[in-house]
């Protein structure tokens, strides 16, 4: 990523500017479709693949909601084959990172996709959209961003997120480090080419490093607080306390952009109860919870995907019993990722730690 880049200063607000950019890309024929947040029938907000300029007018690209992680959408979109026509995608940094993590696992393709991301101000939990109170919150949301402050009503993962600048986007919309006018940073020649014809003036520059650093500090502090408060998973007691009310619906796993298995191991016959075991189990345990494997599922899922966890918070959003899954996974995930000096989705060329072999590693543990 280039730090001294070309930046387009548009005479439009961030939301209008984002929409205008998508419209420009579609109308100029540079792309044949855009994937963005969109108002759908009934007033909800969902991701849509939009191919008509008219339909774009109802799009809400920067709406602070993540109905599903866009990385999962892109994986679904390109799972079978890469798209053969150019498509622009407006994704948040964690969504983009998640997509890259699935590409490393051959679950998606980047061909013909133009990635537009943003310095991300975070999203609200989905129940705020459901109760209809989100639209009324928008002015306050943007005000807090302008103040470069923290918003305590967002997803806890967003409140504690320190990876809010994208790594691999062709274009970055300056949102948290924005100005009244939308500033679009071109990170690649491809990105810069896409901007030709957009209203506005080019300047040399990049992100506003100062504002970003300031926000980073605040986010780091929030992270310590939130992880300390919500991720009570120390030992069996902690795990049982946090995951005890889990109903085993696996919504977290299905919402997770990294969990890509069509047939999850924890849903397969492998872990199915064998009737001949019950009697034996009751000999050694006072009681057996049914269905079994409540905590086991979460630990297992951590083992399988925590190294790629981008802490987007989708898992927590869909939990019917409001377990702080995302924070627990964030804690474990980041701690593991640090051990390998691995940032999921930072670079497509960075191989998954589980696929690499180093002869000398973890001497402090292995000796």
């Amino acid at each position, binding site marked *: 990523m280039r730090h001294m880049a070309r930046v387009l200063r548009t005479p439009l607000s961030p939301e209008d500017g984002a929409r205008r950019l998508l419209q420009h890309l579609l109308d100029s024929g540079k792309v*044949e*479709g855009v*994937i963005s947040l*969109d108002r*759908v029938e*009934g007033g*909800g907000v969902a*991701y*849509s*693949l*939009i*191919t*008509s300029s008219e*339909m774009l007018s109802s799009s809400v690209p920067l709406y602070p909601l993540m109905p599903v992680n866009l990385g999962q*959408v892109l994986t*679904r*979109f390109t*799972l*079978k*084959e*890469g*798209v*053969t026509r150019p498509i622009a995608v407006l994704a948040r940094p964690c969504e983009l990172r998640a997509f890259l993590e699935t590409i490393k696992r051959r679950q998606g393709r980047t061909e013909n996709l133009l990635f537009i991301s943003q310095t991300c101000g975070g999203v609200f939990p*989905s129940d705020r*959209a*459901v*109760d209809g109170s989100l639209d009324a919150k928008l002015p306050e949301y943007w005000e807090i961003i302008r103040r470069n402050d923290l918003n305590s009503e967002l997803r806890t993962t967003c409140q504690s997120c320190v990876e809010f600048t994208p790594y691999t986007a062709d274009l970055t919309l300056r949102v948290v480090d924005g100005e009244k006018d939308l500033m679009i940073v071109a990170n690649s020649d491809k990105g810069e080419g896409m901007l030709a014809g957009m209203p506005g003036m080019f300047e040399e520059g990049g992100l506003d490093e100062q504002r970003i650093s300031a926000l980073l500090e605040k986010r780091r502090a929030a992270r310590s607080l939130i992880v300390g408060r919500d991720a009570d998973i120390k030992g069996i007691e902690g795990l*049982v*306390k946090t995951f*005890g*009310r*889990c*109903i*085993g*619906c696996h*919504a977290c796993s*299905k*919402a997770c952009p990294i969990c890509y298995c*069509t*047939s999850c191991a924890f849903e*397969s016959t492998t872990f199915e*109860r*064998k*009737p*001949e075991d*019950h*009697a034996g189990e*009751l000999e050694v345990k*006072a*009681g*057996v*919870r*049914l*269905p*079994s494997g409540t905590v086991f599922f979460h630990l297992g899922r951590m083992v399988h995907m925590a190294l790629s966890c981008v802490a987007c918070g989708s898992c927590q*959003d*869909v939990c*019917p*019993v*409001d377990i702080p899954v995302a924070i627990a996974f964030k804690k474990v995930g980041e701690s593991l990722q640090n051990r390998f000096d691995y940032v999921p989705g930072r670079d497509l060329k960075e191989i998954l730690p589980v696929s690499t072999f180093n002869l000398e590693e973890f001497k402090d543990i292995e000796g």
Partner: protein
Amino acid sequence: MVHLLRMALEKGLLDAVMVPMRVPAGDGFAHMLTREVALVEQAWPIPPVISVQSGKAVANLTRRGKGAIRVGVVMRPCEMRATLELAKLEQVHLENLTLISMDCPGALALRDFSKSPANEISKFERALNEWEERDIRPICQVCDHSNMVSGDLHLGILGKQEDSFPLIANSAKGEALMSALGFDQATETATWEREADKVTERRSLARQSWKVDLKARIEGPDRLLGILSNCINCHNCMRVCPVCYCRQCYFDSEKVKHPADDYLEQAKRKGALRFPPDMLLFHIGRMTHIGLTCVSCGACEDACPASIPISQMFALAADDAQKAFDYVPGRSMRDPQPLVVYKEKEFEEDETHG
């Protein structure tokens, strides 16, 4: 109920029981298989919420076979019905189970419980004492099978007289257990029947008007899409549904995953394509697959992150579909599922003739 289970265990009439218990943190409930009387004493035979639909829990226990131990299972009528339907589909094996139900006052919304357990518990206690519909979930408010007897034993709470409830045996297994426990067959069930009928009638009436209202809200593609506007296509409803038994849902399978260009083509035809795609297809498809088995338990609505009244929508469609076949899911093991019954003459008023 707890007393009954304890006695059954102590007398060796059952090897174990499966009962709901409060989880250690107190913010939820889970099914516990146990033979320890001490644990049974802490059980909540009717918990305020349905965390895991008992049909699913019983399937978890007996899908692979009946096992070697005799287990008594306590559940709500809708859970009982789901269990019987699952038995028809080979997902539950009933031989070593004794199924015990009770009159159900309804359940509270799952999502609310963890937020303030104490508050919810007192709400439920009120519902249990007064047996009225103020705080219970919408789907429970219109439940016309809340006193249904279809298992082995049924505790007729509504027939309470002084300190005892009538215990009704519905099968040879139930009768045998009752007499082995030394309970007399309920000689007086008239009170229970009267009170139960009152409740059923009240809720049935409510169901009629609810159906009319709901139908008006969701009729036609525009209104249907409107009510599903916030649906994120997460399929949670399907996963918690006790009678959705497929290991991999058709709507999660390869069959509904298409190459990117196909999606682009679709998007071009309409100007935009919502992602993840096929949300409406999923709901209608699921309705087609399980509509005749739906027991209106509300697990789906409890699990929906977008608060869509999905159990109500399914109950609306299921009611009419089941009535067309004169089929009541879970009424009896002797009723085969309509899909596997062939009748040469059927729906003649609907079928066209050459």
